[in-house]
C-alpha cells in the first residue's frame, strides 16, 4: 500500500499497536530535546531511574528559557543541567546559544527520525522530515532511557500546497491561514502533512515557521517531506551526510484532504487573544501599537530578521514604539551581524536582545498595559506576553516591520516600496562551540551531579501495598485545576527542582493546612483525596502529581478525571479511581478512613474495587480505567520504578 510520509515515519518506529487512528501505539524515539524550564526535573528523573547513559541516538538539553540570572537559582540550574548532560550522555546547549527548536534543526535534526521534546513546539522539527512531538517531562525521561513513547495513532491531515506566495506574504501567513480556517482545536489527534508543488518555494526555515505553529492547532505533529530543499539546508550546515530522501509514495492518500493555494494568500494577523482569531491585516490596519517584536521559534530564520532589516533600512521607526529584536540562535545572529542586518535594525531604532526564548514566553519585553503588541511569536493567549491585560497580535515579520515604521498596524503591501529580496549568506556560519557534545562513557561515569542548594533528588517511591488504610485528608468539588493542586507562578516554580520545597505549596489555595496534615500522615500509611468532576484539569505540570505523592497521597477517588492529570497520577504511582455510583461522593466526609483490601490482585483481576469506610456501616465501589501496562506501572509504584527495575536487570 502506498504510504504518506507520516505513515512511513510511524511504521518504521512502531513497537506496539496497530496503525488505526485512535488506537494506542508505542513508538521508538530516536532523539529528544529538553529545555531548562522542564529539563531539571527530567534529569532528576533520570537520576532516580538509575540511568547509566542515554539510549537515544541523540538527546540535547537546551538552556533557552530561564536565561535571566537575577539570583543564583537559574545559574545553579545551568550548572546542574550541564553536569547531568555529561553524566547521562546528552548534548548541552549553553545559555545564549539560542532556542531549542532552530538550534536542534541546525545541528542535530535528521530526516526519517523521531524526536520527542518536553516543549510544546517540538513539532517545529517536523520541517526536516521527522516525526517530532511535544510531551511531558516523564515521557521524555522514559524516551531517553530507551522506553517507547505511547500516543494515540493520529489521523493524517494532508495539506496540498499549490501556487506561489505573492510579494509581502510569507510562511507565517500560511499557518495563520490554516488557523483562520480551523481555529486552535482543528488539529487535535492529527498529524498535519504538507505536500504538493507549492513546497518548492518554501525553504527549510519557512517550513519550520509552519511546523512550529502546528502546536497552535493542537496537532500531534506536523510533517514535511525530506526533499532537495532539506538536502540543501543540511549541506549548508555541513551535514549533507545526514540527508535521506523521504517523500510520500506515488498514490499515497490521507485521512483528511485539504488544499491551500499560496497565490491566494494575503498578509494575515491573529487578533487578541487567540492564535485562531485570524483576519486579514487590512481589516485591522490603522490600530495604534506600542510594540513590534520580531523573533521566537515561530519565526527563527535568517530571512525573518533580514527581511525586517531590509524593510526598515535607512528609515526610523515611529516615535514611542518599542521595536524588539529577539534573535533565536547565535549561529544565525552571527550571520545577521556579518551581513550588517543588525546594524540596519539598530540604526532604525531596534532593541537587540540575547538569543533565547525571552519575551515569547513572557520573560522580558512584556508590553505596556492594554497597549497593542505585534509579535511574530506563536501564541497570544491572555497574559502570555507577561502583561496580565495584554493585547497581542500575531503576524509575519513583514507586517511587524512595516507597522514599526508607521506606528500603527500596517498591511506591508501599502508601504509603497518594492518587496526586498533577501539573499542568504553565501557561506553561512556554522557554530558548534556552544553545543557541547557528551563525553565518552568512561569519562561520563566519573561526573558528579552539581546540585546547588535549590536542587533535591527525587526520593525513592514504594510499590503499591496490598492493603491501604488511608484517611480522606481532603474533599474537594468539581473542576479542581492543577493550579489549585500546585500553582505555577513566580513564587512556586523556582522550586521545580526541589520536591520537598515545592510540596509545601500543595493544595495551599484550597486548604492551607493540607501540607502539615499530609506530612503527619505520610509515614502512617499516607492518605486519600476525594474529588468531583474534571479533577486535575489545566496545565500538564507533573509536579501536581509528584508533590502530593511526596506527601503520601496514595489514592484519588473522584467522579471523573481530566485525562492528562489522570495519566500523571498513574505515572507517579497514585491510584486514580472513580465512583461506580456518583452519589457515594456525598456520603464521604473529610476524616473518614478508607480500607482497600487485596488491592494488587483486585487491580489485576477486575476493574471494580471494594472500599470499606472504617467505623461506619458503609462501603462503596470504585472503578479504574488502567490498561495492563498501566496496572504494571501502578503495582511497581510508578514509571520511575519500572525503568529502575529494568536498568538494574540490564546492569546485573
Amino acid at each position, binding site marked *: 500500500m502506498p504510504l504518506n510520509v507520516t505513515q512511513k515515519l510511524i511504521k518504521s518506529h512502531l513497537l506496539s499497536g496497530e496503525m488505526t487512528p485512535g488506537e494506542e501505539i508505542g513508538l521508538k524515539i530516536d532523539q529528544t530535546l529538553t529545555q531548562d524550564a522542564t529539563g531539571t526535573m527530567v534529569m532528576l528523573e533520570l537520576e532516580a531511574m538509575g540511568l547509566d547513559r542515554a539510549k537515544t541516538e541523540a538527546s540535547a538539553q537546551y538552556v533557552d528559557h530561564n536565561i535571566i540570572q537575577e539570583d543564583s537559582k537559574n545559574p545553579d540550574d545551568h550548572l546542574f543541567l550541564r553536569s547531568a548532560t555529561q553524566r547521562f550522555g546528552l548534548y548541552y546547549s549553553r545559555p545564549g546559544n539560542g532556542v531549542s527548536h532552530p538550534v536542534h534543526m541546525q545541528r542535530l535534526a535528521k530526516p526519517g527520525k523521531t524526536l520527542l521534546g518536553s516543549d*510544546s513546539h517540538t513539532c517545529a522539527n517536523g520541517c526536516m522530515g521527522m516525526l517530532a512531538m511535544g510531551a511531558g517531562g516523564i515521557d521524555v525521561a522514559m524516551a531517553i532511557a530507551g522506553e517507547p513513547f505511547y500516543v494515540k495513532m493520529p489521523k493524517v491531515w494532508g495539506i496540498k500546497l499549490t501556487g506561489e506566495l505573492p510579494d509581502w506574504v510569507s510562511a507565517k501567513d500560511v499557518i495563520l491561514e490554516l488557523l483562520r480556517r480551523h481555529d486552535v482545536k482543528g488539529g487535535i489527534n492529527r498529524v498535519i502533512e504538507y505536500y504538493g508543488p507549492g513546497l518548492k518555494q518554501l525553504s527549510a526555515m519557512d517550513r519550520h515557521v509552519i511546523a512550529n505553529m502546528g502546536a497552535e492547532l493542537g496537532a500531534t505533529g506536523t510533517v514535511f517531506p525530506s526533499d532537495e530543499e532539506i538536502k540543501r539546508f543540511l549541506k549548508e550546515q555541513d551535514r549533507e551526510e545526514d540527508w535521506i530522501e523521504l517523500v510520500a509514495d506515488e498514490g499515497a492518500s490521507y485521512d483528511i484532504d485539504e488544499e491551500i493555494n499560496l497565490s491566494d494568500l494575503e498578509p494575515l494577523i491573529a487578533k487578541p487573544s487567540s492564535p485562531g482569531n485570524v483576519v486579514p491585516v487590512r481589516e485591522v490596519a490603522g490600530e495604534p501599537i506600542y510594540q513590534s517584536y520580531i523573533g521566537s521559534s515561530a519565526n527563527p530564520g535568517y530571512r525573518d530578521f533580514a527581511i525586517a532589516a531590509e524593510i526598515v533600512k535607512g528609515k526610523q521607526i515611529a516615535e514611542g514604539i518599542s521595536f524588539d529584536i529577539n534573535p533565536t540562535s547565535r549561529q544565525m545572529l552571527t550571520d545577521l551581524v556579518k551581513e550588517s542586518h543588525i546594524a540596519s535594525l539598530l540604526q532604525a531604532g531596534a532593541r537587540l536582545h540575547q538569543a533565547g526564548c525571552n519575551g515569547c514566553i513572557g520573560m522580558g519585553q512584556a508590553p505596556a498595559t492594554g497597549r497593542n503588541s505585534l509579535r511574530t511569536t506563536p501564541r497570544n493567549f491572555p497574559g502570555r506576553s507577561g502583561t496580565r491585560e495584554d493585547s497581542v497580535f500575531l503576524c509575519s515579520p513583514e507586517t511587524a516591520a512595516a507597522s514599526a515604521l508607521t506606528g500603527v498596524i500596517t498591511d506591508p503591501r501599502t508601504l509603497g516600496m518594492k518587496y526586498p529580496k533577501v539573499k542568504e549568506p553565501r557561506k553561512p556560519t556554522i557554530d558548534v562551540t556552544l553545543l557541547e557534545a557528551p563525553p565518552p562513557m568512561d569519562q561520563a561515569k566519573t561526573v558528579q551531579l552539581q546540585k546547588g542548594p535549590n536542587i533535591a533528588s527525587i526520593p525513592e517511591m514504594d510499590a503499591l501495598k496490598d492493603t491501604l488504610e488511608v484517611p480522606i485528608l481532603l474533599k474537594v468539588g468539581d473542576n479542581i485545576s492543577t493550579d489549585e493542586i500546585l500553582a505555577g507562578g513566580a513564587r512556586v516554580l523556582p522550586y521545580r527542582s526541589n520536591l520537598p520545597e515545592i510540596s509545601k505549596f500543595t493544595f495551599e489555595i484550597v486548604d492551607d493546612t493540607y501540607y502539615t496534615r499530609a506530612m503527619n500522615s505520610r509515614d502512617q500509611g499516607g492518605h486519600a483525596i476525594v474529588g468531583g468532576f474534571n479533577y486535575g484539569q489545566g496545565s*500538564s505540570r507533573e509536579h501536581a502529581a509528584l508533590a502530593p505523592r511526596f506527601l503520601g497521597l496514595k489514592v484519588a477517588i473522584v467522579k471523573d478525571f481530566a485525562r492528562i492529570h489522570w495519566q500523571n497520577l498513574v505515572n507517579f504511582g497514585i491510584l486514580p479511581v472513580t465512583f461506580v455510583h456518583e452519589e457515594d461522593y456525598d456520603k464521604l466526609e473529610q476524616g473518614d478512613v478508607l480500607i482497600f483490601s487485596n488491592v494488587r490482585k483486585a487491580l489485576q483481576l477486575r476493574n471494580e474495587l471494594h472500599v470499606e469506610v472504617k467505623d461506619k456501616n458503609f462501603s462503596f465501589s470504585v472503578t479504574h480505567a488502567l490498561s495492563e501496562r498501566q496496572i504494571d506501572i501502578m503495582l511497581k509504584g510508578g514509571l520511575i520504578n519500572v525503568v529502575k527495575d529494568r536498568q538494574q536487570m540490564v546492569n546485573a
Partner: protein
Amino acid sequence: MAVNREHICKACDGTGMLADDEAWKYTCSVCNGDGVVMPGENTSPEAPFSVDETNRTLE
C-alpha cells in the same frame, strides 16, 4: 491605596499571572487575574480548561 495582603491570591501571589511547566505565562485561573481572593470566594475555575493531546492549554 494599600493592598490588603490577607486577600492576596496564593496561587499567583497577587500578580494575577501564572506560568506552566514550559514557562508560558497566562492569567491566573484561581483569581481570574485580579490577584485577590476574598473569603468565601470559589477558587475553582468557572469553566473547564481545554487542553490538547499533549495537554497544551487551548483557551
